[in-house]
């Protein structure tokens, strides 16, 4: 699986066979006017290729995102849930904006039991 570098946003995809895990590690800034055009196909491709591995969405190094970045992440969670992929979302407890933004994703864990959201 490929990495993504898009304007000031970087997403590294690390496959860990020993842990049966794919890590999707975000860093930089996501402030494009329409990030879903790039992010949605990129993230869907990960879900299509992940097989039986677990997925870790690691957002703690993301410095800034605009609200347009949220829908492609939400749709990625939904797409993974339809494939019954086990998801762990990791955000930074030291970044106040991340606590508000990503802790609220727990609302999806009510309907999708294979979703966990943790602060690091």
């Amino acid at each position, binding site marked *: 699986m490929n990495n993504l570098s898009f304007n000031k946003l970087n997403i590294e995809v690390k496959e860990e066979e020993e842990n049966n895990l794919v890590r999707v590690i975000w860093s930089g*800034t996501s*402030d*494009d*006017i329409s990030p*879903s055009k790039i992010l949605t196909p990129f993230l869907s491709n990960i879900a299509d290729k992940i097989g039986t591995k677990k997925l870790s969405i690691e957002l703690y190094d993301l410095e*800034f995102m*605009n*609200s*347009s970045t*949220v*829908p492609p992440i*939400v*749709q990625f*969670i*939904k797409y993974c849930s339809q494939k019954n992929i086990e998801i762990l979302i990791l955000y930074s407890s030291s*970044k*106040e*904006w991340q606590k*508000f*933004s990503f802790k*609220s*994703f727990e*609302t*999806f864990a009510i309907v999708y039991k294979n979703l966990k959201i943790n602060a690091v």
Partner: protein
Amino acid sequence: MRKTFLQIEMEPTWAAISNIRETLGEILSSSSVSIRNSVQITATELLENAMKYRSSKTKNENIKLEFNFNHETIDIKVSNNFERDDDFQRLIATVHKIKHESNPKALYEERLKEIYDNDEDKQNRLGLFRIIHECGFDLNCLQDDSQISVIANKRIKEKLD
């Protein structure tokens, strides 16, 4: 006691928004990370809204940002010319809804669920909810015949030099 007032006329380009965000970060470099981030997020969301939802007739007109910061309050005001189209009505309705809801978290999560449930929902319309939930600002809007201003205001307890 330090006070800051900044007024910027922004060309309606997407790149200009990140420049303003960086400028605000520099101005607030001695403030807490929490205040700096909340101002940067709020200004970005208001400017992006002004850019995305302006009408074709006003798309080349500048957008004005006013930033007022003192030891008690932060005010961020974004003004642009407008037409009374669907986006304008939706903006007014959203601000009205926000003003009459005491639980910003509930509004934010309600919008997240809508995005989750509807794949075809291409407009995220999350920015204003993010401002009240994540950044702790109140929102208001003013309008006259040709201009609308969306105002974010927050009381703070930061000790300034």
